[in-house]
């Protein structure tokens, strides 16, 4: 395959077949990630709350998301009587489309992206702002007062925090222009390359400016995806229920899918802009081949660790006849993880030299994807942690923070970053 050796993403190289392959891999990966996120949320929340979470459906509830998906598929599809059929039908689709289209530019590696648009970050921000339309339409199509008010509130909140998000993104983009040629870039892959060239993750650049911009984005992205502590529009204990009240079964699961996919997408933006994207820690400081090899063992070690935890869990299950099948299932799952770890180890060892052999390229690709996904996973865990720990803001307090606190701070960070950038040059 002529594409295989190139260092470009398939969209840039013009290779439609590989672009399609990447798209399907990403789509499958994100769907699996959403299901895993669903499981993790229930388990992590439960453990925060001194309970166990799902334990019965599959060992330690691992098959619970499948059971949930089945249940939602088999539910009766209720459409409110006077609802606008077309808009009711299309609203979750728009949300889903907006959430999934952004993955075209998410850079899992220097050539591991579907395409490298030179307006990558602009595209991501723009398409995720189309998700707001899905929510507004969902609330309106339900033909009921409470979902409408909830939808308008949700969308007002999302639009307000998009402003702060955008300004924080602009300060990060500004940092990409601090190179010799003086031109910055909006392309996602180039942003990570800029961090590589400048030798520092943008979160640490011009300390504390990068950090403040990152924190602003981290807070705004939680508000953007309607997660706690900004989830007033979805809370049951308030008077107005959320925009997806009237949706049942498959349609509701589409909203949930869109929400989790949006969470992963904005986390990818944060990782790309501030946390160095696919780069491993200390690529310039610890660049000896020994260090390279050590860091390339991390994927295998991670999966090996997960397999070990799985085996431990299987060993610790009570020896009752009910748990026989669960123990067997968990052992099989852990064995699969162990096999994967073994495979990754083989690839890491086979490709340890930095030549252009197939094994080396595989290893590099896997390493890039691994570090990127690891950083995004940290953000996912943080989302769940926020939800478990904090109460929720009242709506007016939320809007006050978005406009009166985040916007001035991000403007200030932008101006100071620009000034410092000019001074440094």
């Amino acid at each position, binding site marked *: 395959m002529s594409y295989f050796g190139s260092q470009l993403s398939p969209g840039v190289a013009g290779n439609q077949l590989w672009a399609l392959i990447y798209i399907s891999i990403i789509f499958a990966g994100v769907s699996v990630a959403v299901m895993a996120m669903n499981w993790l949320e229930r388990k992590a929340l439960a453990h925060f709350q*001194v309970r166990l979470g799902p334990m019965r459906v599959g060992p330690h509830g691992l098959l619970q998301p499948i059971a949930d998906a089945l249940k939602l598929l088999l539910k009766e599809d209720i459409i409110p009587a006077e609802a606008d059929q077309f808009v009711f039908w299309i609203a979750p689709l728009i949300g889903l489309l907006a959430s999934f289209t952004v993955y075209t530019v998410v850079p899992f590696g220097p050539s591991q992206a579907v395409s490298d648009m030179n307006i990558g970050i602009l595209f991501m921000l723009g398409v995720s702002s189309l998700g707001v339309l899905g929510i507004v339409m969902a609330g309106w199509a339900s033909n009921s007062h409470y979902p409408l008010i909830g939808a308008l509130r949700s969308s007002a909140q999302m639009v307000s925090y998009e402003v702060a998000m955008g300004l924080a993104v602009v300060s990060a983009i500004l940092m990409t222009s601090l190179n010799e040629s003086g031109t910055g870039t909006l392309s996602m892959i180039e942003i990570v390359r800029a961090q590589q060239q400048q030798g520092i993750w943008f979160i640490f650049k011009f300390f504390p400016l990068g950090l403040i911009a990152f924190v602003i984005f981290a807070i705004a992205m939680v508000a953007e995806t309607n997660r706690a*502590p900004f989830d007033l529009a979805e809370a049951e204990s308030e008077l107005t229920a959320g925009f997806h009240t009237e949706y049942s079964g498959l349609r509701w699961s589409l909203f949930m899918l869109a929400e989790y996919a949006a969470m992963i997408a904005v986390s990818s933006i944060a990782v790309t802009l501030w946390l160095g994207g696919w780069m491993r820690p200390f690529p310039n400081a610890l660049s000896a081949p020994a260090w390279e090899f050590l860091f390339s063992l991390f994927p295998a070690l991670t999966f090996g660790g997960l397999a070990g935890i799985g085996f431990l869990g299987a060993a610790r299950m009570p020896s009752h006849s009910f748990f026989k099948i669960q123990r067997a299932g968990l052992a099989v799952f852990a064995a699969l993880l162990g096999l994967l770890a073994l495979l990754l180890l083989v690839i890491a060892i086979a490709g340890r030299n930095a030549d252009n052999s197939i094994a080396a390229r595989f290893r590099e690709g896997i390493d890039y994807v691994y570090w990127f996904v690891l950083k995004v996973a940290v953000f996912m865990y943080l989302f769940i942690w926020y939800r478990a720990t904090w109460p929720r803001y*009242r709506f007016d307090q939320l809007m006050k923070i978005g406009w009166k606190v985040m916007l001035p701070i991000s403007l200030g960070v932008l101006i100071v970053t620009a000034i410092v950038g000019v001074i440094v040059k």
Partner: protein
Amino acid sequence: MSVPTKPEPANALTNEVSNLDLATSEKPYLDSNELVINMGPQHPATHGVLRVILKLDGEKVLGTECVIGYLHRGVEKIAENRTYTMFNPYVDRMDYVAAVSNGLGYCEAVEKLLNVEAPPRAKYIRVILTELNRIASHQLWLGTHALDIGAMTPLFYTFRDREEILKIFEKYCGARLTTHAFRIGGCQYETYAGFEKEVENYLAFLPPKIDEYEALLTGNRIWLERTKNVGVISAADAIALGVTGPVLRASGVKWDLRKAQPYAAYSDFDFEIPTGKNGDTFDRYMVRMVEMRQSLRIIEQAVGRIPEGPIMAKVPKVIKPAVGEIYHSIEAPKGELGYFIVSDGSTQPYRVRVRPPSFVNLQALDIMVRGMLVADVVAVIGTLDIVLGEVDR
């Protein structure tokens, strides 16, 4: 668009709404946004079957009216057809969260009517169990209040710690919630073997847990923004409405019946009465947290030196008090719980009137939520710590 006159809603709601004062004094400039919204009786956040009718102007609350009675079981009428001893289990069901206090109030009221006094050992046991119950009631309040405001985790922590208290109750009298722990004249059950040990274990077990609750909530900026200056009631208003309990104390009035009119063995113990300054939700939260710690202090002083002796005074087998009436009140976890018993000389009381603290405190809801936003109504209902079983009886 003509300036609209006040709309006349033609539904049954207006017939029930009596003091909501739908006529506003000022003429609205544009189309007025006034809305009458019904909250409950089935609602995740009204702590029982409470119906609150809110009159809103956009998001601001202009007035409320509570419709109660969904849990009315005719307890006071039942009392007229039961003997004094038979009525004892009924009082637990009023404030089912703090059942021990209800029983204490009733037994002491009848004892006053009979002119008997429970022996010292019984008084100490009563104090220990009542203070444990106060902690359990406050823990349940904390969990549900935090959940209403959006913090879902403290609920599980407080319920987990409450389990230990309920285990002690179960070992003592066989029931966890509606305990029927006391009898007229003292206690029926002797403390079980290991009672003091378990209570002392709990005294060591709880303070780090209270620190855990405070670590999650007290310093949290979101919690502070949701509770400071929300639901403010001044001391004068509180006294005028007859509000008692932590709500009164949070407005700055240092009034606690355990110190003002000591009953049971409270005069033997040394403890403090926490008060607040602003009378907002945050002060009520802090007052209850400090009260939990003070209850631990009381229990600590009591459990070490329970006097020996009988646990039951000399009470006739058939309780027939002399003709007369008595009002006796105690400091329940929610406020002043009073019993007014009128005896006509027979074995059944002529009238038992219960002064439930939640019923009187609920009247403060109207004052507290005026000018607040809709999302605060839920927080204020939670901070009043009402139990509908008590409000409706």
